[in-house]
């Protein structure tokens, strides 16, 4: 079984933990997030007929700030960069963040995710994505669960391709 570390990162309040909780059965308290700034959980899912074990690291805080230990990012085969579609402030520094992540983890699969699409109309989402300086890979709603499974399926498929 393929076992890979995947990190969830992005600005404060974009819904990383909600995506995390939506995808995995959350048996551990979120207090870890506030104490050491990270919470780890696992989900085994079938991707293209093969089992993939995602070791998910939900990292609290911002991407390129010094407060988050760099070691939390190391060894990640996949990165899920999350921003909030309804709050432009959360993708204001997307170029800087993505650049930082690519430098830190040049060989990792990176997925840019626009979350909270349930708060916007379809047209509004399209406008935001057109104006975004980076290509958004998928838009999700952790609240309704829309496209969450699909996100991990896509990520898993790309990880499998690299084996």
């Amino acid at each position, binding site marked *: 079984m*393929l*076992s*890979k*570390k995947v990190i969830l990162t992005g600005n404060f309040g974009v819904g990383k933990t909600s995506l995390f909780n939506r995808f995995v059965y959350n*048996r*551990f308290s979120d207090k*870890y997030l506030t104490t*050491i*700034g*990270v*919470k*780890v*959980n*696992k989900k085994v899912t079938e991707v293209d007929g093969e089992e993939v*074990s995602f*070791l998910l*690291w939900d990292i609290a805080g911002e991407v390129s700030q010094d407060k988050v*230990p*760099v*070691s*939390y990012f*190391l*060894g*990640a*085969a996949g990165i899920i960069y999350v921003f909030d579609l309804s709050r432009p402030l959360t993708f204001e520094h997307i170029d800087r963040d993505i650049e930082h992540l690519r430098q830190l983890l040049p060989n990792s699969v990176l997925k840019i995710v626009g979350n909270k699409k349930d708060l916007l109309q379809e047209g509004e989402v399209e406008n935001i994505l057109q104006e975004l300086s980076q290509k958004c890979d998928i838009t999700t709603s952790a609240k309704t669960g829309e496209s969450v499974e699909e996100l991990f399926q896509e990520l898993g498929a790309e990880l499998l391709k690299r*084996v």
Partner: protein
Amino acid sequence: MGSDAQKQNDEMMLSIIRDILLREDRDDIADIKELLDDPDKLSERIAPVIEFHIETLKRKFPKEYRKEVDKIVERKLKASQDELLDVVYPVMGKMVRKYVSHQFVSLKESLDDRLRNFFSTQRLVNRFKSMVFGVNEGDLLLSEMDSTSIEEVFLIERDSGVLLGHYSRNTTMDRDVVAGMLTAIKAFVEDAFSKERQDLEMIEYGTYKIYIQSFHLYYAAVILNGSVTATEKDRIAARLLDFAEGEMKGFSYNAEETDTNKLSSKLAEYFKHEGI
């Protein structure tokens, strides 16, 4: 004379009028007096009224006076912390005493067992050790009883926290998640407190200890139960080095190529019979 007779007549008339006017009130007062003088009758009349008010108070009290009572209790608790501790300490003291005496009973039973086997091989070895090295035989007995046991061994990829192998005497919670969280904690501590490159070596909680030995691409976390002396730590470290030398030579992490089952059974081989 005439005026005296007139005066007397007036008073009599007044008395008659007073009697007529106040008769009812006087009767009532007499009844009330009789009621007040007789406790049984009084209680019979007043009890239902008091009962009604008590019931009303009971019903309304939590809503009407809760905040006030909370404030009073809070004030009282703050003001009487010392008194509270006085109350709690004896209870805690009894519990501690009970625990300690239980431990002494266990220790005594264990000592009895050892003494019963007075002529056992181990006993003779201890006596020999005692004579040769000058170590108190009692100390040797105690150190034998206070043994440390290896509960679990995790072999974890250093950066990703992915589990490479695992050995456990008992079934445990999700090992992958434990490996991930251990890696996160390790990373956090090393990042927060290390000025130079240093590794976290030991985490302690209660009677359990997590001994961590870091290698270049991976690290081992050994969960121990009991007290760990420097010698025991050295033995575990040596065993881990043996394992690294024997089984992990030329290891380059590749999740899809690492045979976690094979590494797990190898760990079991190395640590299953490891009595520290």
